[in-house]
């Protein structure tokens, strides 16, 4: 199995924003593999290009943004070359998307049941009438009184419930790939926990793969098997989830993990913040995009570093990745703590 081609392969993806007569790359050449049944996290801060990468894959880019290069292979077929009609058939059926704000993707003037039915019809029936299946779907995402909710409009539901409906709609056609773009960022932490647990349970049942876009390293640790870290339009590190947290090997990943206050560590006096700001789209430094904020910066960083292997399936785009990786171990050793005592 391990040598099989991935379910979805992204190669050299470039997506650019058009401003007046100039085009600026938001995504600067992303490679990414999504395997059968796995959850792959794409993490990064706002402006890193993680959402645009996801939208490029689903071909749901807004005006003034277009993919200028690369391939997205599903079953060996480049979906970037499909006609819009073919793509529409594929979306929903093979690839479904859940966004941060359900109100932007739910139709405010259509009842929940109508919107679910549309999605159910994408996959020829496996028995049962549509209303029965819609009710079962709502129930499967933890919505009480599902039969009554089918006749409601989106605004009659709470934010958490709308996101549950979105997940039900996304999974109605039994897609092979779910792209979830910050699906719970706007929700409270208790609702977030319930919805992500549920999303995981339902995709596991379907055997679907999930591309989870998030900025939250806690969410990554809980739900992902593998992680790709994005910074300023490119992937700077990729690894299986344990390896990434145990041995962050790009200075940005390391900085990100260190700068968060953590419930599972003794309270730090001061947070080791990453100084400065991410570069603007129009003013990326040449070479490594992180070098202007990087404590490890050397002359060589003016040249763009390739992905360098640091362990099995673990690589980082940094000239000094071995030194960065070697720093971990002593200072990231877990300490028994409050949050654990809660259990």
């Amino acid at each position, binding site marked *: 199995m391990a040598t099989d081609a991935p379910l979805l392969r992204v190669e050299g993806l470039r997506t650019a924003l058009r401003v007046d007569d100039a085009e600026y790359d938001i995504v600067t050449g992303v490679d990414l593999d999504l395997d059968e049944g796995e959850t792959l996290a794409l993490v990064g801060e706002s402006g890193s290009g993680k959402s645009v990468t996801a939208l490029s894959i689903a071909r749901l880019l807004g005006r003034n943004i277009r993919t200028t290069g690369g391939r997205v292979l599903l079953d060996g077929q480049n979906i970037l070359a499909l006609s819009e009609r073919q793509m529409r058939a594929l979306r929903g059926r093979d690839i479904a998307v859940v966004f941060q704000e359900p109100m932007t993707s739910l139709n405010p003037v259509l009842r929940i049941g109508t919107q679910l039915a549309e999605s159910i019809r994408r996959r020829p029936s496996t028995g049962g009438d549509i209303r029965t299946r819609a009710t079962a779907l709502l129930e499967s995402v933890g919505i009480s009184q599902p039969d009554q909710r089918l006749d409601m409009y989106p605004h009659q539901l709470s934010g958490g419930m709308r996101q549950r409906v979105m997940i039900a709609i996304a999974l109605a056609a039994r897609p092979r790939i779910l792209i979830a773009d910050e699906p719970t960022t706007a929700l409270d932490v208790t609702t977030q926990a319930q919805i992500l647990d549920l999303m995981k349970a339902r995709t596991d049942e379907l055997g679907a793969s999930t591309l989870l876009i998030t*900025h939250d390293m806690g969410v*990554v640790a809980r739900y992902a098997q593998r992680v790709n870290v994005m910074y300023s339009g490119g992937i700077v590190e990729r690894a299986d989830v344990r390896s990434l947290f145990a041995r962050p090997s790009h200075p940005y990943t390391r900085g990100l993990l260190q700068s968060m*206050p953590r419930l599972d560590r003794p309270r730090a006096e001061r*947070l080791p913040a*990453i100084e400065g700001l991410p570069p603007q789209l129009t003013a990326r430094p040449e070479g490594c995009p992180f070098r202007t904020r990087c404590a490890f910066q050397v002359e060589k960083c003016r040249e763009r570093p390739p992905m360098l292997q640091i362990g099995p399936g673990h690589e980082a785009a940094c000239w000094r990745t071995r030194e960065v990786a070697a720093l971990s171990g002593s200072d990231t050793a877990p300490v028994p703590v409050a949050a*654990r005592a*809660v*259990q």
Partner: protein
Amino acid sequence: MTVQPVLVAENICKMFPSSGGRGIHAVDQVNLHINPGETLGLVGESGSGKSTLGRALLQLDRPTSGRVLLNGTDITAMSDRALRPLRRHMQMVFQDPQSSLDPRMTVASIIAEPLVIAGAVKGRAALRRRVEELLDLVRLPTSAAKRYPQEFSGGQKQRIGIARAIALNPQLIVADEAVSSLDVSVQAQIINLLTDLQAELGFACLFIAHDLAVVRHVADRIAVMFLGRIVELASSEALFAEPSHPYTRTLLDAAPIPDPEFEATRQRNVGAFVRRRYPAELTEIAPGHFVASDVPEPSE
């Protein structure tokens, strides 16, 4: 010897009219105090009333009932006019620096505004010096003074908002989700800035946030709010070591921990928590550790 708190809230209620006619208790019978120089964290979900409470304490929206004492003086009974000279002691930092900074004003005039209104600094030269001093305190270059808010990033805008808040050397700052919209790497910079300034200037802080890890990092004591009421209040250490209200435990359970080894074997039950109003009365279960009973009120 006990210190006099900067601020004491007694039985604060804030009601908003509702279509049913009975009104909604956004904040209900809240009691708390904030000591000089300390940070009180206030956590709760959206709609729990934490921002409403913050605004009611500062008299930005007057509470429906209850008293707020600033340095022992009841400010709830004061007219707006009488209150004005006291406002300099209490300032606010908002979540969204984008909408809380006037885009037509230069950074210098935004920061100078409270100084001018309070008549705290006389003369243009002195005002300019104070603005430069404040920019320096929030680690912005003096060249920022002549520029406009939209020329700055989110983190830099929050520095401007903080400079404005500390301009009059307040005794209390209410920071309402002040770092919530910032990316992690920038968030750490602003948290560090706030703690540095607090150590230097000695103001007390009511730090309102929904991120437990952030609140634990900055707060000495933490109040947990649920449906308009405080359900638990304790020192930061005690709250995390011995969370005692079911809602507090649910919050802790729900927070994802950035450690895959831990998450892989974690047992939790976030869905079991019963969402209902808990009694407003708090019981002291250990010195300084207060908890609302987890049985529902008789009336409900």
